[in-house]
């Protein structure tokens, strides 16, 4: 708080001094600097309060508008409205944002409700919905917003102000919501004692929960509608409140609001103070993510002591019988895969008329030469991500683990981003940088996991934090119109566009080699999920096994992210599909999951090349769009 005050003064002090002399400085003080501070305080307060409500009512220290997908939902709704129904954007803006965040929260919580609001399912569903909304928003922006970066700024959350209107219109709405939240304090205290006790004391738990969540969603939607997406404040503020000793709901709500306001105002002050020197445009929302991610990781240790025991995400008993038994499922899987391959290679759009067609005989060779490298790249990437997913899920004993969710793909993106700024990004260098990035994240996860036996919560959290960090960095670069942003965006969106036959075949060879390696280690993969004691008991050198498996998974992820981008979800979907088909042993899951992952990306690549012909949509984003609903359906069925 002191920091916030000091930074605010550093920004405003000189303006006050100057405003005595110059009317312009006075105008700036009264209508830009002060309203900006006010909006930062109000938004921070609202986000802190919203996060605290979510965390209290869901009994989940990881809940927040950002981690539950609420902010991303609001942002997607705003992007859609801006592009397709601009008339809605005046007074309807709050309504649009509210609709988006409401739908996102609805989906996430419905999924959660089926699993007793298990924190893992909630956060996973929230993360998936967030990334899905982000992917769709990115496609829409890429295809519609060539020279104008306005929508990027929105997504990145800028606090720049030119009048008191946003602050003044936010204030009463927030006050009403805060008042309602205040009325919830008593019922929330009852719920603290446990749902059963609360019900016995006369509280109607489901209704209370619904009300509290509604208030939290409204708070987050109002902020997103006013200044855009500002992540992490809603997550970190309640954590700080708890760390500084707040225990009861009243204390947590109040202190979360205070810390939220201070946190955002301090961040914004920092942004103004540093960019004042550089004269670069940096949206504050992006910076909260950049600062918030490591802060959050640092806080994880402290959080541990305070949070109540949660029902752990124990591996669920698998369905006794697969969808299809025995040989039949393999035939289905292989046939489906071959059919997809044929579709991807043969069916396309006629170049000049745009009609659907098989390539004409005279150009057949030329067209095939164009399609083959991309299909091979998609296939390899999908299979490699899925195999990495199988390894990671078995290694961490966490069925929600995957290169995407754990932030390993984000690590690859960081690697490539660094490369972009230090060297000419040739393809082999990109491959090395991506693998190094992936391995660095894996090493961090490993270091973090050693002390905690790969506690799923921390791993997921690290992944969320890192993905958000990468998003933020890309946002800053994109907003500034740096041409490297387009390369980065292309990378983020995961296109097979730049694949040539040499690269594709190299990636395929690497993939086959590492998959063979993984198959050779399948005994470890079968035994490790049973626990380290069991594993040591049968004579497995745990350290060596883990190291080798992590190494394989890291290189697989890095190489695959090169072609599919960090959010294809093939690495999460492949293993799940294999498991749904009843492929339980590691060896079978690796092969089946690999085929499924490959099929998903091949299909996505084909759809991306053809649906908007001659304009292309990146395979990674399309895969996320196709795969996410599928994944949510899978989670729901369990």
């Amino acid at each position: 708080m002191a920091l916030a005050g000091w930074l605010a003064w550093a920004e405003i002090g000189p303006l006050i001094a100057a405003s005595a002399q110059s009317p312009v400085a006075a105008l700036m003080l009264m209508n830009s600097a002060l309203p900006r501070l006010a909006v930062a305080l109000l938004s921070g307060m609202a986000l802190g309060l919203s996060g605290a409500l979510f965390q209290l009512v869901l009994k989940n220290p990881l809940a927040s508008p950002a981690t539950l997908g609420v902010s991303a939902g609001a942002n997607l709704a705003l992007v859609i409205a801006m592009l397709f129904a601009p008339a809605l954007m005046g007074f309807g803006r709050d309504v649009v944002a509210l609709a988006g965040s409401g739908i996102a929260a609805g989906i996430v919580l419905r999924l959660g409700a089926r699993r007793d609001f298990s924190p893992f399912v909630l956060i996973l569903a929230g993360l998936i919905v967030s990334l899905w909304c982000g992917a769709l928003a990115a496609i829409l922006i890429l295809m519609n917003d060539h020279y104008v970066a306005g929508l990027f700024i929105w997504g990145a959350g800028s606090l720049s102000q030119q009048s008191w209107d946003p602050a003044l219109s936010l204030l009463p709405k927030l006050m009403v919501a805060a008042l309602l939240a205040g009325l919830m304090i008593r019922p929330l205290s009852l719920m603290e004692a446990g749902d059963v006790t609360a019900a016995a004391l006369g509280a109607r738990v489901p209704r209370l929960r619904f009300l509290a969540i509604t208030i939290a969603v409204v708070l987050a939607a109002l902020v997103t509608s006013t200044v855009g997406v500002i992540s992490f404040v809603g997550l970190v503020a309640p954590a700080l409140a708890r760390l500084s000793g707040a225990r009861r709901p009243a204390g947590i709500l109040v202190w979360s609001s205070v810390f939220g306001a201070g946190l955002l105002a301090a961040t914004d002050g920092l942004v103004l103070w540093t960019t004042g020197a550089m004269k670069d445009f940096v949206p504050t929302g992006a910076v909260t993510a950049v600062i918030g991610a490591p802060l959050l990781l640092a806080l994880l240790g402290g959080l541990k002591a305070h949070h109540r025991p949660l029902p752990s995400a124990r591996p669920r008993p698998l369905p006794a019988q697969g969808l299809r038994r025995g040989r039949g499922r393999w035939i289905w899987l292989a046939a489906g895969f071959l059919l997809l391959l044929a579709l991807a290679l043969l069916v396309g759009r006629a170049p000049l008329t745009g009609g659907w067609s098989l390539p004409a005989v005279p150009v057949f060779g030329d067209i095939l030469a164009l399609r083959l490298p991309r299909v091979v790249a998609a296939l390899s990437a999908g299979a490699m991500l899925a195999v990495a997913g199988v390894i990671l899920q078995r290694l961490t004993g966490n069925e929600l683990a995957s290169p995407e969710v754990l932030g390993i793909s984000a690590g690859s993106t960081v690697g490539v981003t660094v490369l972009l700024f230090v060297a000419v990004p040739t393809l082999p260098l990109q491959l090395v940088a991506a693998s190094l990035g992936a391995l660095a994240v894996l090493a961090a996860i490993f270091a973090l996991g050693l002390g905690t036996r790969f506690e799923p919560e921390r791993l997921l959290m690290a992944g969320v934090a890192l993905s958000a960090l990468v998003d933020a960095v890309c946002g800053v670069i994109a907003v500034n119109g740096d041409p490297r942003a387009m390369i980065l965006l292309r990378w983020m969106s995961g296109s097979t566009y730049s694949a040539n036959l040499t690269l594709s075949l190299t990636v395929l060879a690497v993939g086959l080699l590492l998959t063979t390696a993984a198959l050779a280690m399948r005994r470890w993969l079968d035994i490790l999920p049973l626990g380290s004691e069991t594993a040591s008991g049968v004579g497995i050198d745990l350290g060596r096994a883990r190291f080798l498996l992590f190494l394989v998974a890291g290189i697989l992820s890095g190489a695959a992210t090169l072609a599919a981008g960090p959010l294809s979800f093939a690495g999460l979907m492949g293993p799940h599909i294999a498991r749904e088909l009843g492929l339980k042993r590691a060896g079978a899951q690796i092969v089946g999951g690999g085929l499924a992952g490959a099929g998903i990306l091949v299909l996505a690549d084909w759809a991306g090349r053809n649906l908007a012909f001659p304009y292309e949509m990146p395979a990674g984003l399309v895969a996320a769009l196709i795969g996410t609903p599928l994944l949510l359906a899978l989670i729901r069925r369990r």
Partner: protein
Amino acid sequence: MQSLSRRAFMMAAGIGLWSLPARAGGVAPRVVSLDYGLSSTLLSLGLTPVGIAGVDDWGKWVVEPPLPPEVADVGDALMVNLEALTALAPTLILSTPYLDGLTPVLETIAPVLRLSVYDASGGSILPKAEAATRLLGDRIGRRAEADAFLQRADQHFARCRDAVRAAGAPPVALISFLDARHARIYTAPGLFDDTLGRIGMRNAWPGGGQYWGFDTIGIERLTEIDAPNAHLIAFEPLPREALPTLRQSPIWNGLSFVRDGRFAVLPETLMFGMVNEAMRFAGQMADYVGRLR
């Protein structure tokens, strides 16, 4: 009266030349252009490209000269549809440093001519655009047309300069609104900034930008413009909510150029273009200051 920009275009862009048959003694090259500035330059040299990138948005950014309907679309410049490109059987592909990542792929389809206007080497944009126009003329066997086109452009700039001088040449700040709170402001070095210099005007924005010639700012930073008689020009497309929201803002209303009515919105003009785009912009400026009298 026909506006200066419109009239100049009819003359300078060489309307009528496009319909000339392929010249005697040779078949016209089948050119695909991946850059709007290069595409419009081709048209002004009397060669209609067989395909360009981004046909859909031509009317949103380039507008003049109009794009002949027979030009095929090869998709987005950064992800040219290679199947569509191959089907056009081009004999030459025009590219820019912005698209360098594509060059190896493009070269498997046809020879690539990379013309550099916007790059990190620094220097003024307009002279680089003129040099690129001559290079292009050399390469497609239309050097004479290129020289004639540049001469028409010079005459156009000279006419605009006269019109501007007669109107007192006030300094101008040039922006595109990104939303109701942010804008891109066009800086030196940049196409707009260079063209202002060419027609005897001055950019009122004191700050610099990157080599594309713009900077992203919050609207409140427009207060940094200190020239007392500066005008503010915003270009279409305008986010719908920008002006209604800004009219409520004391900062916006307090800006001297807004308060005194020295603010205008002009039709869309490509800020990352070449000579044609500079001419369209110069004509717009000359018309604008001409209307001030």
